[in-house]
């Protein structure tokens, strides 16, 4: 049945993808939504909520405001708050109600910017699309409004990390590990979209020589920066030791050639096991993990992607599985399944299930059990048996 999930959870929405992507940048992020939706984000999908301050607001739109299309209250509230908080930017985030009544968030943002002088933009999320499209919209707005083509490139080799959010990488140290790995291969981290970098650092992203895309949420800005700033991109997460080495090789090759590439299309694996494995998850991370497992264990590994992605990221054997029914069919005959624990009900009985928590799917339930697999032998985390 289309769009019916009887056994599994659903992914975080575009609305929360935006909040997560903009969380650390000093902007004021306003979800134009009924009160209550805020707590879904803060309680379940935002592990930084209790330890790191951010200006995330909810407009608490009421029934009568929706019926009357009363935008003035939103405009007034945002301007008043912005004048007190002095954010670096204002992002108005759409949700189901403004989507249905056709609220023009872009026009409202222009009115607010005119009044406050603070860069403002409307992001037309609707709460019904996946978190990756929200991350994509948010990063796109940051690049559009704050980044420019830098004529003077850095004298040292700089790599921007694109696609870092806790929704995909939790707070288990993976992003710090990617920064360390970049240093170990003789390069520097430029801007990290968007964990651990300030808005000022992001605005200088044009100084880098290459972009490393670690989540599909950053694919659009990678393409935009390639076109507008002449920065090639490499798509892949340096998980494990062997795949990390392939990512390193691709980064160095792209620096030389100026051409973009997808790492999972580049490695060679010697499949020597009769076992078949499936990984369910976000396409860039899952295909990277598949690359490491195929190289290290010789086990054929199929990625099942329930989220937005595109053909060039998936390998020939991988599948897009947006529906629960598609997933169940694709999992038949698998010996090993690697996925968020909430996917376990779909796992065939004879298969071994390896839990790999994904905040965007199960929220914070398994937060403390998500391993940092960056540039690390899998055996250190238990490996595959």
């Amino acid at each position, binding site marked *: 049945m*289309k769009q019916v999930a009887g056994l599994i959870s659903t992914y975080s929405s575009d609305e929360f993808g935006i909040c997560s992507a903009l969380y650390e940048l000093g902007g004021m992020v306003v979800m134009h939504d009924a009160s209550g939706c805020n707590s879904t984000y803060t309680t379940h999908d935002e592990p930084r909520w209790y330890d790191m301050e951010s200006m995330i607001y909810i407009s608490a739109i009421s029934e009568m405001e929706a019926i009357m*299309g009363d935008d003035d209250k939103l405009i007034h509230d945002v301007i008043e708050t912005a004048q007190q908080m002095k954010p670096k930017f204002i992002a108005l985030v759409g949700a189901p109600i403004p989507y*249905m*009544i*056709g*609220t*023009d968030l*872009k*026009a*409202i943002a*222009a*009115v607010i910017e*005119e009044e406050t002088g603070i860069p403002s933009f409307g992001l037309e999320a609707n709460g019904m699309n996946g978190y990756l499209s929200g991350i994509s919209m948010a990063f796109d707005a940051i690049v559009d409004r704050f980044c420019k083509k830098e004529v003077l490139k850095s004298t040292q080799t700089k790599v921007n990390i694109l696609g870092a959010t806790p929704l995909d990488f939790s707070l288990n140290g993976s992003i710090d590990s990617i920064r360390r790995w970049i240093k170990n291969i003789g390069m520097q981290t430029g801007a990290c979209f968007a964990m651990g970098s300030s808005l000022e650092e992001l605005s200088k992203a044009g100084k880098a020589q290459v972009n490393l895309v670690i989540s599909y949420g950053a694919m659009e800005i990678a393409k935009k920066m390639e076109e507008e700033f002449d920065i090639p991109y490499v798509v892949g997460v340096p998980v494990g030791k062997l795949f990390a080495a392939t990512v390193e090789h691709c980064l160095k090759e792209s620096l030389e050639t100026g051409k973009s590439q997808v790492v999972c299309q580049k490695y060679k694996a010697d499949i020597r096991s009769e076992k078949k494995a499936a990984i369910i998850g976000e396409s860039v991370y899952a295909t990277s993990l598949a690359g490491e497992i195929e190289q290290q264990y010789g086990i054929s590994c199929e990625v099942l992607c329930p989220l937005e992605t595109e053909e060039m990221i998936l390998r020939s054997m991988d599948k897009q599985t947006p529906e629960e029914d598609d997933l169940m069919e694709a999992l038949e005959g698998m010996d090993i399944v690697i996925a968020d624990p909430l996917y376990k009900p779909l796992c065939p009985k004879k298969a071994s299930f390896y839990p790999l928590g994904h905040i965007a799917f199960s929220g914070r339930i398994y937060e403390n059990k998500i391993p940092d697999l960056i540039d690390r032998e899998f055996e250190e985390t238990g490996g595959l048996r």
Partner: protein
Amino acid sequence: MLKLAIYGKGGIGKSTTTSNLAAAFATLGKKVIQIGCDPKADSTINLLNGDPVKPVMNYIREFDEEPETLDPIAKEGFGGVLCIETGGPTPGLGCAGRGIITTFSLLEDLELFEIYKPDVVLYDVLGDVVCGGFAAPIREGYASEILIVTSGEKMALYAANNINTAVNNFEDRGYATVKGIILNRRNVENEREKVEEFAKNSGLEIIADIPRSQDIIHYEDLGKTVVEGDPQLQVSKVYLDLAKRLLEDKE
């Protein structure tokens, strides 16, 4: 690209005016798109010889998904005018305004303007600016100018005033502005004077005065616009002159 939205009271002749204007632009050699924004989906019928295009909402209802190309929801009519209809939900259900926004967003995803590269886009909008959805055609990126169709009848002028007021309310949002009034005559007593008075009070100009004509009805019965049927007729020349003027003003 000249992008115009046509508003006016229901039944005042918006679709007739829009289709004839589209046919006039096409006759002048321009590449035209006409988008009907009315659940009735009858805006473009006289450009298509009575053989209608499948409205976008009908497609989505029938196939339970959005079309992947423009082919099933766009059809070329007289003079190569590309005809599209938003259509709407099942009468009495759903939200027609939201249907318009969804259609516009879909047309953007399908890269309508990039693929078709029109010189002129006409949005024929249902009646009044009743809610957010019906204001969508005048938002940034869509129409940049509005034509209000009215007769000298009291209720038509009342609707025209409502539309003009609604548009003025959006002036800080970068929306389309009212270009002028098209007087579509209904043979009301002192019709020109009545509309002139409204125009003067609203600071607007009457940019075309279309006579009441049996020829329009005759050719509509044949599934055509009068501009297609007989471009030499006086009424056809009014539409052609209006099209020329709009193009000249744009330049």
